[in-house]
């Protein structure tokens, strides 16, 4: 296979992934619209342990759908479930295709596939979907599928339309093992930040419904707010140390390349801001009066700051890091 073929195959895989993921998203959306008032299985009454129960915001426990339930599972909407299964299978297929696209791209260029914004976005899409699918191995996350596939599609879509660049060698400053380590850690934590932001958004939605005592329609298909909050926390508890590591690796690389490990370059500054906001999130969760909704807003803010670092700094600010060609 010639090099040009590889590039063609890579692009084909990416386009195929987009088609597959679109159907996946539609299937996931169907789980929400399927008729019947299915209560998410997660909403079944589970004993609230002291560790978790004592911290959950006291106000959010009014859940008519959940509290009055018998412990047996409510009848689950068959069609909704089938749609969810289809969505999940397609998501796996789309993931495989995306991964293939990224790998072929890397083989073509003879290096890791994150030399420019297009490749970086492609890898980020793989990370977002990967984090979601990895989580869904352990629990039923079909209700999160719309968001996960949607975010992935948006990222890939942006990559192929706005950011597409022919593959090329890296400029010398980018050929470093620290680049591989630093960028892969940043990409994976970015994927996790994104999924956590989605969960947090759903948490805010669900929490509001619970507070108002109006849990019907799509909200009713979500897990309880407490659960959403815990899930988002767990992901961030994974992503935050990884992000910390990415920043440290970046500093080591900067020291090697530019002779200083920290220089308040815009990219570094926003990595720092993102880090500080997520540290604030962790503190907020441990501070009375800040748990729950306020902490959730902080988590969203952290993600916005991550996006600013990713798009804003790469595209609009003159930064040492801007040479990752657009």
């Amino acid at each position, binding site marked *: 296979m010639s090099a040009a073929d590889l590039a063609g195959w890579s692009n084909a895989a990416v386009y195929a992934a987009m088609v597959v993921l679109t159907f996946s998203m539609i299937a996931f959306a169907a789980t929400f619209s399927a008729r019947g008032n299915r209560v998410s299985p997660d909403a079944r*009454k589970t*004993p*609230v*342990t*002291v*560790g*978790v*129960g*004592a*911290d959950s915001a006291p106000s959010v426990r009014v859940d008519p759908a959940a509290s009055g339930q018998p412990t047996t599972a409510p009848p689950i909407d068959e069609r909704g479930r089938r749609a969810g299964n289809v969505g999940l299978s397609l998501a796996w297929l789309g993931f495989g295709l995306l991964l293939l696209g990224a790998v072929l791209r890397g083989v073509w260029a003879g290096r890791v596939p994150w030399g420019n914004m297009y490749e970086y976005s492609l890898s980020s899409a793989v990370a977002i979907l990967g984090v979601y699918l990895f989580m869904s191995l352990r629990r039923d996350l079909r209700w999160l599928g719309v968001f996960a596939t949607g975010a992935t599609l948006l990222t890939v879509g942006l990559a192929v339309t706005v950011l597409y660049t*022919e*593959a*090329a*060698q890296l*400029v*010398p*400053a980018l*050929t*470093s093992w*620290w680049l591989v380590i630093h960028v892969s850690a940043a990409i994976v934590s970015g994927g996790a930040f994104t999924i956590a932001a989605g969960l947090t958004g759903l948490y805010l939605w669900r929490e509001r419904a619970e507070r108002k005592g109006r849990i019907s329609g799509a909200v009713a298909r979500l897990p309880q707010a407490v659960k959403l909050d*815990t899930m988002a*926390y*767990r992901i961030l*508890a994974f992503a*935050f*140390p990884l992000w*910390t590591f990415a920043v*440290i690796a970046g*500093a*080591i*690389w900067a*020291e*090697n*390349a*530019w*002779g*200083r*490990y920290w*220089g*308040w370059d*815009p990219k570094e*500054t*926003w990595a*720092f*801001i993102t880090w*500080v906001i997520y*540290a*604030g999130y962790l*503190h*907020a969760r*441990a*501070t*009375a*009066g*800040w*748990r729950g909704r306020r902490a959730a807003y902080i988590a969203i803010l952290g993600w916005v*700051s991550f996006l600013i670092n990713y798009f804003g*700094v790469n595209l609009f*600010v003159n930064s040492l890091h801007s040479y990752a*060609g657009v």
Partner: protein
Amino acid sequence: MSTPPASAESPVEGRLIDPASTPPSGPGQSAGSAGALPPLGAGGFARWAWRQLTSMRTALILLFALAVAAIPGSVLPQRGIDPILVREWIEDAPTWGPILDRLGFFDVYAAPWFAAIYLLLFISVIGCVLPRTGVHIKALRTPPPRAPRRLSRMAHFRTWTTSPDTPGAQTSAAPASTAPASAASVLDDVEADLRRRRWRVARGVDDSAAGEQPSGWVSAEKGYARETGNLLFHAALIVLLIAVGYGAVFGWRGNVIVREGNGFSNTLTQYDAWGGGRLASPDGLPPFSFTLEEFRVEFERSDTERGSPRLFEAEVTARAEPGAPEVTEVIRVNEPIAFDGAKVFLVGHGYAPRIEVRDADGRLVFDDAVVVLPQDGNQTSIGVVKVPDALPQLGFQMLFLPTAAVDDVRGPFSSFPDADDPAIFASAWVGDLGLDDGVPQSVYRLVTDAMSQVGLEALRPGQTWDLPDGIGSVSFTGWQRWASFQIAHDPGKEPALIASGLALIGLMMSLYVKRRRVWVRAADGPSGVTIEVAGLARTDEADLAADVEQVAGVAGAPEGKSGPGQASGERLGEDSGMMDGQNRTGGRR
């Protein structure tokens, strides 16, 4: 079982604080009074202020302040990075520029208000971490508290009674040494097992009402590393800040441009620019030297990303000190070389056209390779030649194009960064260079106040331009490359790296270690031993089912799963004495 007076358990419990929360007596807790007015009196006020500062809420607010304060530095140009841009910015905004400048917005990360935020934050961390360390050390030396009375209230709970034919009795054929299934032997097994698995264990016997068999208990706790890690993390951040500051005060860095074939020795006078921290000593620089033998570059030639650099490589011969053996080294962009704590980084490159100038008499008055500075990615470069020895003095402004191209709009420019088709566009000046007034001049700028322009000419290598009126001639005889190096010494960077590594380790410990307790109570009875096993998570998201199952298994539990105790789903009542769970919400405000 009699319910002991609450005070019998509370003092013990009181000392064991939740790992994630400040002790009831700690600085964080009293911050609940945040909205309250400060008490009167200097001492009272100081204490109040200190508690405010070290409260979690203040830490949170300061963290946000830090995030917000860092933003302007990424939006406005910064002196430390691009002083020229800063000057232009201020000139373009005559009203706002100077005001922002006065307020430090062009040097955000050195501004007093920025420093104030992080210093307050770090004082807050210290004020928070010190008392917590004390409490934690005490907790590490205190055995776990006695088992609460009613284990059945715990989220994870199992109870069963051994029948006469369970474990002990079954082994009647075994040697007599086999322990009978007594409460004590069950507890022995459990205790041994827990200790082996590195739980901290306490053992005791309940007071019993008259006529009742006393029941024994084992109480065990694990996961102290969570708090250890959290303290390590916060302490490491403080060390990190100190390391960064230390590096800033004692470190130095300088820049120098070296042409191929030329040398550099590490003394202050050889630098083009040098800056050091307040306590850096410019006299004690490590005495190394090197010569740039060759600088190799390669650029992308295919259409995609044409002109992108592909290879930069500086080959040098170096000596660590005068008289030391000479070694050949290659410095690449990500591969600095080091001498005695100073690192030499390759940061840039460019061209140096060779220029010969003859005066009116044909005498050679200038012969050198002149460094020109690149202005764009294709190395369109500018530079000047000053010839003070000619009479009258001569000066040239040069545009050097490694691959010359001319465009109606842009005029002459370079279309490729490698020297495929080099050309010089020179403009010649005659008059007084102004070198004698004692004011230092940039070598890259011609002061033309006392000079007049006599012509403009394009030159290819080997060409000579005879200046008008026979005042002399200038020849472009060839070119070579130069490389620019940054030489830096930051004594704080290794401590900073170690501190960040420790911070990361501490962070992971504090996020992933689960602090939890298990209890076993066993009582001999007429029909067998009644055993209760219970567990309690003391931090978010700990799953105790596995721990409880493990302990129950050791205690000889029949097949089955632990379920929630009676009180599941509601918060533990005050009377259970297990207040820790609530500290998390009630502790800090």
